Structures are given as structure tokens and as C-alpha cells.
């Protein structure tokens, strides 16, 4: 079957999740209560503001992920043709991984792999 079928699955998902809440909204009971809409915080009102800047130590991981994800994308086509190209491909990937490994080792030694 052809690739346009993806559209079907997209629409299917959208219809499924679209209609069910509508149905649920019709049949479900509604009642109002001022405390009900509060965000959950163990039964006490939220202190301060939720959306404030705070440090999650993301940045380095995001950069590293970018490097390695691009690498994955690169390696996939290589993996497909690896058998046909033979030794050349192997040597190339060894060099590639060597450089990549150095990068990882650098990040490791620089303690970039520790989540703060």
C-alpha cells in the first residue's frame, strides 16, 4: 500500500481523540466548586508561581543529543550499504566513531555528563 496512507492514520488518530472527549463532555456530569480547578499540590494552595525560570541542566545534554542524533541519522544509510561497500565502509566508520568517541570522552572528562 502506498505511503499516502499515512494521512489516514493521522486523520484516524485525530478523529478518535477528537470525538471521544466530545462524547465524554456530553455524558459526563458537571459541577462547580472553586477549589476543584486548582492545580494539585497535595491539598494546599500553590505557593508562588509555577512558570518561573529554573535551571534544569538541560543545555549540555541537548547539545550532546544533537551531535549523537545527527550521527545516528548519518549511520543509518551507512548501515544499509555496509555489506556491499565492504572494508572501506568499515574503516570509514571506525574513523568516524573514533572522532565521536573522543568527543564523548571529552564531555565525560569535563563532567558534562552529570545532571545538576
Amino acid at each position, binding site marked *: 500500500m502506498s505511503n499516502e496512507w499515512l494521512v489516514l492514520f493521522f486523520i484516524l488518530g485525530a478523529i478518535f481523540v477528537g470525538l471521544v472527549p466530545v462524547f465524554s463532555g456530553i455524558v459526563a456530569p458537571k459541577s462547580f466548586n472553586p477549589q476543584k480547578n486548582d492545580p494539585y499540590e*497535595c*491539598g494546599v494552595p500553590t505557593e*508562588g508561581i509555577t512558570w518561573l*525560570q529554573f535551571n534544569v541542566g538541560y543545555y549540555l545534554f541537548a547539545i550532546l543529543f544533537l551531535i549523537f542524533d545527527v550521527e545516528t541519522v548519518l549511520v543509518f544509510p551507512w548501515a544499509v550499504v555496509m555489506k556491499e561497500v565492504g572494508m572501506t565502509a568499515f574503516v570509514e566508520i571506525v574513523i568516524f566513531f573514533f572522532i565521536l568517541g573522543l568527543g564523548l570522552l571529552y564531555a565525560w572528562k569535563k563532567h558534562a555528563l552529570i545532571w545538576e
Partner: protein
Amino acid sequence: MEEKVEIIATDEKQEFIVNMGPQHPSTHGVLRLVVSLQGETVKNIQPHIGYIHRGIEKMCESITYPQIIHLTDRMDYLSAHQNNESVCLLVEKALEVDIPDRIKVIRTIMSELSRLQSHQLFWATFGMDLGGQTCYFYGLRDREMILDIFEETTGGRMIVSYNCPGGLMYDIHPNFQKRVKDFIKYFRKKLPEYDTILTGNVIFRERTSGIGPLTLQDAISYGITGPSARASGLSCDVRKHEPYSAYDKVKFNEVLFSEGDTYHRYMARNDEMRQSMNTIEQLIDNIPEGPYAVKMKPVIKLPEGEYFQRVETARGELGLFVISDGNKNPYRVKFRSPNFVNLGVLNHLAKGFKIADLIAIAGSLDFVIPDMDR
């Protein structure tokens, strides 16, 4: 119209404050911790307690000594028997009543069983706090057998009310010895499983070792007692230092470690389970014959004065301080409950660790909230 509020802050001075509790799955009750965070790291913890403050100390001032016992059951519900024992020992000491050996031995066995079931529940909930939910069911499954023993003899599962001044409420049930022996046999088989699932597990080791270290100085200064303190190397076992009941007749080791981190607090309890089983095994076959209670006066009046009695509950040292003015009601009762004191160290321990570690540390201190609030 709802008023517009500023909901995105850019001010860096704003603190990210999360309320953990009173309705939170890992605070084991209604403990509220106001945690300020920096990313995932805990900066400060403000414990708020008192959600189930019942004024037990005030209530004790208006009831008689035998009646106090049913209140002590409800403080630390996992060490109910030891709590009861503290009142009985105090009254017996004050009136200088001689307690027959049979009572002493039965009390010791019961309080060791009580410690055992408390540590089992600790194991269960500690595993659950760390995310291993199966531990909870295994722990409770084995604890159930002890509760059955309790129920058969005392009629209550957790709230045993088995002690009374001058002895015990009833004699032990005829099946008691057999059941206890069966249980020890069963639990000796199951305990290695506990170690396989949790203690030896590499994830568990990583999660607990080195987390929340408590030094000996801090343990002393904060007044920590029980297994939590013994993990830091503080020898504070009342059973060794001031033996009561039949503890001077049995051989057992005080479990001591020096590291004081979460893992060793866990291990201290884990090893105490083995010690408790040894203790019970020494006593269960030689319960002396005799009466199960000494005849006391119908109205118990303590001579005027101040009395202090310490017992070792599963969580640490329970101190009972009674001022009597010679009436049938105590003038002032103060329970020095181990959980209340241990709570003080939480902020000191968890500062600088992550949220997940806070849960592990709080779990390893093994809080029972009603004991804090009293």
C-alpha cells in the same frame, strides 16, 4: 470574569516551592514538607506537622494510668506494644512492683515481634518509596503473619493494648509458641528474598549509598535515636544500656554502622530483623510458668514525684516523663517520641540532594506521623 494574573515569572529571586504533603504518596501520612527547589535540587525543607495532633499529653492529664495505655497505642501505631510497655514499666517502677519472669519474657517476645513487623513495614514502604512497588506487597504479606499472632493473643492487630500495669491483659494463646516458631521458620526463608530484591539490587545501591549522610556528631546533636542513629555509629540502644523486661537475659547484638547514609540506615533495620528473630528464638521455648498479671490495686496512684522511663521502640528511644502529684491522674505526661525528634534532622540531611533523594532520606528515617503529632 477571572482577573488576569501574572503567571510567568522572570524574576530570578522567585523560589520554586513545592508542597509535598499533606496528601502525598510518600510522606506516609499527613506530613507536609514545603520544599524549595533549585532545578531538581533541594535547597530548603520546612516540615509542617500537626495535622493529626490529638493532644494526647493533655488527654493523659485527665485519665488514669491504665487508661493511658489505650492512647499510647495510637501514637506510634507500629510500635504499639513498646509504647504500652513504657507506661507499664513506669508505673511498676514507681510502685516498686515485682514482676514475675513470665510476664517479662512474654513482653520481650511481643515487643520484638512488634519491632519485626515494624521493620517489615519499613522495608515494604521504603521499597515503594524508591519505586519498587512489589516490595510493599512482599513486606505486608510477611507482616500479616505477625499480625495474626498478635490478633490471636491480644485481639487486636495493630492496636494491641496487651500490657497493663502489673502484667498483661490476658495470658498468651495456646497456639502462640507454635505460631511464632512457624513464623520464624517461614521468615528465615523469606528474608534472603528481601535482600535479593532490594538490598543487592544495583539500582537500590546507587539510589541509597552516600545519600543523606549523617555524622556521629550531628546524630548526637540532633538527638537521633534508634536504627537511624545506630547507622551513624551512635550506640543508643536502650535494650543494652538500660535493660528492661527480659533484655538482660538474652544475647543480641546492637547493630552499629559508621557511615550513616541512607543505605546503612536501611541496613541497620534489615539487620535488626535478624537480631529480633534471634532474640525471639532464645525466649520462645523457655517461657517460665507463672501468673500473667500481678494483682494491682484497683485505683493506681503513683507517689508524688517525677518519673522517667525509656524503652526502645522500633524507631528509637521513647521517653516517658511523668510528673505525679499523688492522684490517680498524672499531673503532666510528656512523650519523648522518637519520630518527632528524628524529624528535626530532615532538613539537615536532604539539603543539596535531589527530590528523589529527599524521598529516600525521609523513607529511611521511617516516620510514623501520629507519633510526631501525638
